[in-house]
């Protein structure tokens, strides 16, 4: 039966093309990091060996990778939903903070059965992150400001708000700028006792499946994608362009807020300054690299987390700073974003010259 006609892949650059681009990017990243390592007077092969060994040295390091990738995957999934309508959610960090602090407040002060606390914390964190993201989307839809700039500004507002809250009204006794811990009973159980990985990662897998389903199977996902393809056509098609654009940013923010709740309830049990180590930006990067596909976002986040965990343990053995992760990440992003354009330009130059208006279209 030929029923499944909505072949999404047909609408995107061919599979081989994206594989080629990704391989090219990774190759470039390896070359640049080899140069970087050589310039520090170390042996690149042994450094890479330390990174890989460090990442997979034992069960706990593997679980550490899972724990590290959890918030990035959740925020990345949200980014992919905003991207469907053509919005870029660079406000992941601010939304994450808002979700984290509101979830922490519920966790600390709400005295109720565990599952009620959980549900309340999830709802409140989604709402807080969603409002933070939705506001940027709302301004874009109504007065056409850049949602990117607004979201980045909102990041700072959230950052300083949290800084104020954890060092003043919500500060735990002891002088460290952090909130009190949530009661042990409401903390998310660990996958394996003693590790950092918690049951949140299972949520994440389900969430990714859900996002895939919504974007590929449902009317709602189709409407979002249509707006991203052409807002003009979507409006003609009777799709509520403004409302859904704002909604997509609200969902993206809600996801980031939820990630904040998961981190508070699963990993830190409290909010402290610097709880997000630019998860938001990393998530955007990974989502772009994954071309907004949920599976790609999971794989990409796991890769980056592996790298981070490996580098952290490598640093102990070799004199190479952890900033090598940033170098590798940046080169990968740079090549993924730039390479296809360069290749396209190259192919274009070989084609016959077109009149200017057609050139713009192609």
């Amino acid at each position, binding site marked *: 039966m*030929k029923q499944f006609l909505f072949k999404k892949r047909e609408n995107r650059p061919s599979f081989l093309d994206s594989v080629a681009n990704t391989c090219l990017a990774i190759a470039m990243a390896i070359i640049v990091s080899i140069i970087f390592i050589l310039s520090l007077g170390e042996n690149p092969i042994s450094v890479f060996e330390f990174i890989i060994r460090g990442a997979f040295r034992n069960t706990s390091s593997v679980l550490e990778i899972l724990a590290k990738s959890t918030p990035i995957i959740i925020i990345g999934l949200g980014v992919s939903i905003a991207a469907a309508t053509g919005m870029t959610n660079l406000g992941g960090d601010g939304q994450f903070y808002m979700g984290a602090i509101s979830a922490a407040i519920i966790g600390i002060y709400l005295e109720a059965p565990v599952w009620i606390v959980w549900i309340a914390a999830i709802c409140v964190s989604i709402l807080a992150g969603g409002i933070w993201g939705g506001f940027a989307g709302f301004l874009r839809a109504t007065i056409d400001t850049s949602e990117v700039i607004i979201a980045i500004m909102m990041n700072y507002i959230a950052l300083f708000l949290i800084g104020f809250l954890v060092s003043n009204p919500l500060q735990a006794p002891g002088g460290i700028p952090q909130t009190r811990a949530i009661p042990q009973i409401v903390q998310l159980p660990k996958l394996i006792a003693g590790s950092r990985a918690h049951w949140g990662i299972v949520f994440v897998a389900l969430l990714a499946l859900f996002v895939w389903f919504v974007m590929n199977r449902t*009317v709602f996902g*189709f409407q979002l994608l*249509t707006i991203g393809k052409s807002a003009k*056509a979507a409006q*003609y*098609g*009777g799709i*509520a362009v403004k409302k859904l654009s704002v909604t997509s940013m609200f969902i993206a923010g809600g996801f980031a807020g939820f990630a904040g709740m998961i981190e508070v309830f699963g990993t830190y049990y409290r909010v402290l300054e610097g709880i997000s180590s630019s998860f938001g930006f990393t998530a955007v990067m990974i989502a772009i690299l994954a071309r907004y596909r949920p599976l790609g976002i999971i794989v990409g986040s796991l890769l980056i987390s592996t790298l981070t965990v490996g580098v952290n343990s490598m640093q102990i053995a070799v004199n190479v700073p952890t900033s090598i992760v940033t170098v590798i990440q940046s080169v990968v992003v740079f090549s993924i974003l730039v390479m296809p354009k360069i290749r396209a330009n190259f192919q274009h130059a070989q084609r016959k010259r077109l009149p200017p208006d057609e050139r713009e279209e192609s």
Partner: protein
Amino acid sequence: MLNPANTILEMKGISKFFDGKPANDQIDLKVNEGEIVALLGENGAGKSTLMNILFGLYQADHGEISIDGKVVSINSPLDAIALGIGMVHQHFMLIPAFDAYENIALSISGKRNGLVNHQVIREQIKKHSIQYNLSIVLDTIVQDLPVGLQQQVEILKALFGECRILVLDEPTGVLNEQEKIKLFSSLKELKAAGLSIIFISHKLDEVLDISDRVVILRKGKVVDSVTTNRTNKEDLACRMVGRDVVFSVKKGPRLFDNKMKDRVLEIKNIEVHGKRNTQTIKDLSLTIHRGELFGIAGVDGNGQSELVEALAGLRHVTKGKIFLNGNEITNRSSRSIKQMGLAFVPEDRRSMGTIASYSLDQNIFFRNSDSKTFRKHFGQIDKKKLHMLGDRLIKDYDIRIPHRDMLVGQLSGGNIQKVILAREISSDPVVLVAMHPTRGLDVGAIEFIHTRLLELLSSGAGILLISTELDEIISLSDQMAVISNGKLSRPFRPDELSLSQIGLLMGGSDEEACR
């Protein structure tokens, strides 16, 4: 009379093809020194293409251009400017946030190794503007200038770089009467100073007023070249609209005659503002009955887009009311207007009517995405049902699609239009608004679409057909009107007025003048 030996520009045998169709077909054009030549023609006649070739924006497929008798090759606007050709585009190429001075300086600073001597340029601009009677306030931000003055900035910009041939593409389209008078007096000054001017227009009065010679283009060919003082409006109108296609589709007997008086669409005195926030549509009314096709003829850009967008709920109506089947639809959302039975074939079939990177099924669905018909549990899309509808439309509308997964953007223009038409008609509309449904299509596709429109009429729907193809309007309409400057003429039967009378209406004359 000017000495014909002083030919400054000669374009010979210029041809330009887009998608295998000629936009310019063996065009010859001569321009003498100190002469104003008007290029007259309807939309799509090839005027702008020809001038874009002259200005280096396009390259001709055949033919040659010579200046002062020497063959030149113009590969970019920079080449054109170096050869003394200046162009003022229909849509201004100014940077709105810069002031007038900066906009002009911008176009010349490149020649000075990146260093700008503001004093010198300022002096030059002043000299030019006094010489040609152009009034420019140099320090005003361009977006705050009235349109007429923006145009003067454009002209002044074009005059720099030793301009000898000035091309003006529909310069009066955006101007009011006073600005137009001012422009014409400037043009006469320029002409007296020895400049040659090519003036693109479709407005007969202006052409007669300003030009020395009129070159008439139709369907990519030069039809005629006449000295202005030896011609008149009727003559020009007739030559401009012409008539050479005999349509094979004829109106058959209608099941619904107008005696039934069921008004399916009623537009009452609406006012719709255009993009520049000028009043584009003024006090427009029309009525369409069941089974009636109402045609609106006119040159593009006279308010047609604004009208259909207002009808489809995509543009705000500031005054007046619109009724569909007796229910008011003024300023309702495009979704509810669609659901109330107004189908719409938009003019831009590739970027609005369809989504190029969607399949056929998806292109049918994006216009029906709220319909319960294609919705399963959990908000899922019923792809099976959609596929069946797609199959049916492919068969009924003879859509040539190699395989079902193919993206619609890869189809030919005719097939894309069939997809849109199939989708819109299959929604069983009360009224179909179709804008340029056959533009750029081959004869076979045109005939097919006309047949479908007539079939829809016999099922009792009303159709509002907007087209720049006069032949199409005349052969299909029960009632027609001409739109010009946002105003609709009184409705008339296609056989009521002669071709030249209609041409006059299209050229902006009022109806008394046509009698």
